[in-house]
């Protein structure tokens, strides 16, 4: 490995480090450093870097945790950040160190603060002189405390500065380069969060339960705390098991619809029909689950799941066939079919009777009662909840099996160990299966209240696997991707575009249809029946999920989990009086908007030339020339580029119609 002659930071890296450090330093001064306690209405006690405490809570007398060590740490971090700013301006090579130190100081401050609050909580719990209700209130008051924007920005800015500084070293540059695919989604999320913050600042008045009037300065602190509160609440579900399970439950249908949209995207088709396909899938699952032969017992379940898949596939195939045969746009047709599906849905479960040409006919599908809903599913057609499935502690104690966790661990370890061996993936998979089976009866004791997360999550995982294998390991997948990248070239290569279009839409519909199993067989609508409150809008969220996941199975999974988390977290935001849960919908829309406008990131950043070219060109931050491609770059190049949907759609139309003209 040759070393770069210029040991200074590249201009781009220096600019990133400068921005991150400067923003973090300003944040330390402008925003509250920490929250020392938070009441039920999100009323905070705020600590500023100067040591000033602003108590806006309804608890004016609550003793606050000691903050002695946190403040000096904050000042030290500020000093380091300022040094980083100077270093970044001079493009000094040591910036990574000061950035990293600032981040570490920030983390230490957060931990110390957490300890102080923990001591208060323990003290309250031990204090028997308090009324139980008041004790609970006081405990959640301290538990609501923690870092605030000041410390958060310090840690984040420090880490970004460190990363930008480290990019000077070839090994780190290589490592960071691998994360380049995350750049557009990450920037989109950040921008969406930023715009969302502005929305919150505008629509939400400051929380002040103390009754003392706010000066402009304390008013600003309270306002900025709102932003932190909203986002920390949205992302809070990852910190505890119960909300985490709830997040997984909300993520499950998103995985299905996300895969559906992504699958069509890969073939150059835009599937806006996931809501309709989901609806038809759910209706079919219900029909089989309620009216299937009871004698089948548990055999009814696979039949019902297959029916859901078939229903969705049919609803997806219609626009596929129409496009292949007549060249009519799948975009419009899928939208129209959404409305048709919704009409069928309401027709079936909305009423017991309907009139046709003046005569009244009866419909058997609606159950008794005021609410439009179907009959309950037969016992055999219900998916068990995941907790039931994984619960190995039979005698009343709740204990989850350690199997999946051990399997995951085994997979990761073996995969890393066999990275350079052929068939390493298969070996790792085998090891994971073995480890999982061996430890299935080993339980981890946990406290879970019970969750409606059901086995359709496992179906979703299977679909992720199916998507990956089908798309990247089979000839059919190769053909589909070829159609997506260039229909014309694919046609010349002997691939039937019409067949690809129909197949892709059918499979996309199947994925979306399977989401119906989550709602109907899985009882995610609180009952094992088809109900009118089925949130079909998850079909549209699938578009956001697919875009954010860059149309890869793993990406769809990650994006679904993110959306599931903020959907769960949005319940907590309701504590603020003037804000509606729809702030989450706005955030999702903004994420799509900013990803769509990914062009604002320079092409040099998102899609750089291969390192060999860059090195010969002698560009600032390029990795040194290496013989051949490094494994990671080769992997990057193997990854299929994403098709441009509209363009592909257009050419696709030309090609499919070519035979007819």
């Amino acid at each position, binding site marked *: 490995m040759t070393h770069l002659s210029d040991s200074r930071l590249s201009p781009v890296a220096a600019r990133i480090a400068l921005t991150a450090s400067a923003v973090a330093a300003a944040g330390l001064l402008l925003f509250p450093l920490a929250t020392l306690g938070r009441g039920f209405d999100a009323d905070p006690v705020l600590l500023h870097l100067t040591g000033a405490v602003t108590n806006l809570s309804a608890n004016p007398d609550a003793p606050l945790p000691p903050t002695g060590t946190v403040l000096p740490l904050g000042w030290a971090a500020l000093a380091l950040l300022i040094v980083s700013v100077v270093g970044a301006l001079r493009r000094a090579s040591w910036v990574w160190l000061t950035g990293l130190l600032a981040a570490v100081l920030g983390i230490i401050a957060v931990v110390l603060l957490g300890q102080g609050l923990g001591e208060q909580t323990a003290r309250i719990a031990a204090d028997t002189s308090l009324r139980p209700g008041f004790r609970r209130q006081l405990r959640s008051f301290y538990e609501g405390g923690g870092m605030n924007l000041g410390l958060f920005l310090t840690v984040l800015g420090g880490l970004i500065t460190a990363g930008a500084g480290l990019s000077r070293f070839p090994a780190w540059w290589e490592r960071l380069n691998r994360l380049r695919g995350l750049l557009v989604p990450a920037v989109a999320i950040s921008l969406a969060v930023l715009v969302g913050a502005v929305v919150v600042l505008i629509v939400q008045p400051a929380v002040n339960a103390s009754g003392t009037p706010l000066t402009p300065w304390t008013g600003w602190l309270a306002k900025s705390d709102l932003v932190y509160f909203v986002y920390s609440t949205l992302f809070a579900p990852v910190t505890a098991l119960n909300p985490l399970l709830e997040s997984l439950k909300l993520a499950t249908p998103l995985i299905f619809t996300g895969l559906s949209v992504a699958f069509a995207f890969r073939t150059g088709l835009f599937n806006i029909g996931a809501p309709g396909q989901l609806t038809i899938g759910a209706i079919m699952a219900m029909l089989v689950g309620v009216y299937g032969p009871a004698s089948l017992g548990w055999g009814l379940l696979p039949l019902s799941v297959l029916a859901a898949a078939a229903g969705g596939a049919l609803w997806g195939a219609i626009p596929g066939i*129409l496009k292949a045969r007549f060249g009519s746009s799948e975009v419009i047709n899928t939208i129209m079919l959404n409305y048709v599906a919704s009409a069928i849905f309401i027709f079936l479960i909305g009423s017991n009777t309907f009139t046709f040409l003046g005569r009244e006919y009866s419909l058997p599908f609606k159950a008794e009662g005021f609410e439009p809903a179907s009959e309950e599913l037969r016992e055999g057609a219900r998916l068990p909840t995941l907790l039931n499935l994984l619960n190995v502690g039979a005698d009343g104690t709740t204990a989850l099996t350690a199997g999946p966790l051990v399997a995951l661990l085994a997979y990761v370890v073996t995969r890393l160990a066999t990275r350079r061996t052929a068939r390493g993936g298969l070996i790792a998979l085998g090891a994971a299966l073995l480890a999982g089976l061996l430890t299935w009866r080993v339980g981890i004791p946990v406290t879970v209240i019970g969750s409606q997360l059901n086995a359709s999550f496992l179906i979703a995982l299977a679909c992720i696997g199916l998507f990956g294998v089908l798309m990247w390991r089979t000839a059919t997948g190769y053909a589909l991707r070829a159609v997506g990248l260039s229909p014309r070239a694919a046609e010349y290569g002997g691939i039937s575009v019409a067949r690809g279009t129909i197949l892709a839409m059918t499979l996309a519909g199947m994925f979306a249809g399977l989401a119906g199993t989550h709602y109907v067989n899985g009882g995610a609508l609180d009952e094992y029946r088809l109900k009118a409150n089925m949130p079909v809008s998850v079909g549209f969220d699938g*578009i956001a999920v697919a875009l954010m996941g860059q149309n890869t199975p793993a990406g769809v999974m990650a994006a679904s989990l993110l959306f599931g988390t903020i959907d769960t977290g949005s319940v907590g935001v309701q504590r603020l009086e*003037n804000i509606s849960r729809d702030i989450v919908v*706005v*955030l999702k829309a903004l994420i799509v908007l900013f990803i769509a406008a990914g062009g604002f990131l320079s092409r040099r950043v998102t899609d750089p030339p291969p390192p060999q070219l860059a090195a010969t060109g002698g560009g600032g931050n390029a990795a040194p020339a290496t013989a051949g491609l490094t494994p990671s770059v080769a992997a990057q190049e193997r990854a299929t580029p994403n098709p441009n949907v509209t363009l592909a759609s257009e050419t696709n139309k030309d090609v499919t119609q070519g035979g007819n003209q």
Partner: protein
Amino acid sequence: MDGLFAQLLTTAFLATFIRSVVPLLLTGLGGLFSERSGVVNIALDGLIIFGALAGAVATLALEPSLGSLAPWLGWLAGALVGGLIAWIHAVISIKYRADQVISGTAINLLATGVPAVILTALYGSSTESPKVQNALPLWGIGELRFSPPVFFALLTALVTWYVLYRTPFGLRLRATGEHPGAAASMGVNVRRMRYSGVILSGLLAGTAGVFLSIGNLDSYVRNISAGLGFISLAALIFGQWKPLGVLAATILFGFLQALSITLGGTDLLPPTLVQALPYLITIIALAFTGRSAGPKALGKPLDG
């Protein structure tokens, strides 16, 4: 059957019919400007919602001071907000060369969330605004009394035809959508034409929204557009991207909608299924007209 025809020949049906056509026509003509300039505008439904919301909010805010003048300014506000949101679509798809369908879908997603946030912040309800005291006035005789956007819509259809085929602006707009390269070489500012087309679509779709919120009802309610934007888009394609074609197509779809509203009260057909009729007809119609070419450069970002 006699009963049905008697019902269809009433002035009440005629009024329902005209009220169903108007928002479709305005939005469809808006979409026409956008798509003739070469930008797919799937965001029409969202633009209607934003227009409706802005119209109602502005009227509510101005009522105490301006009285019966308020809805007129509300109309202006609705149109302008529609234009503003369309401008965002234009920036993303023209400046950043993003996929136009995805950008439009993002705007539609935005339209499902933003109104709730604004309504909650302003009025404490996430589903509807308070009722306005001064809706747009109704002009006409007997049962045939309509708010001004109705007359505006009919006028717009004629003006659109004239502008598109009889003015230099229309010629340039059509050229931009058909062959941007050629248009540019003749000195047409293609970007500016596309921006104008998209923003015009926002102004018109916003007006359609204003008609829904303060011309037809007297408040903004959640999901007020009920998919009208998508039907107008279908009408636009059905009408072969021509002003008179759009007029004819929206009359057809408007008739079907009015029919489903009227039939909803009778025992002839299940109303839910009649509501699905316009969508089914669209699918079938698209199968036969899908081959008819729209503007050639539709959906393609500019090179360079």
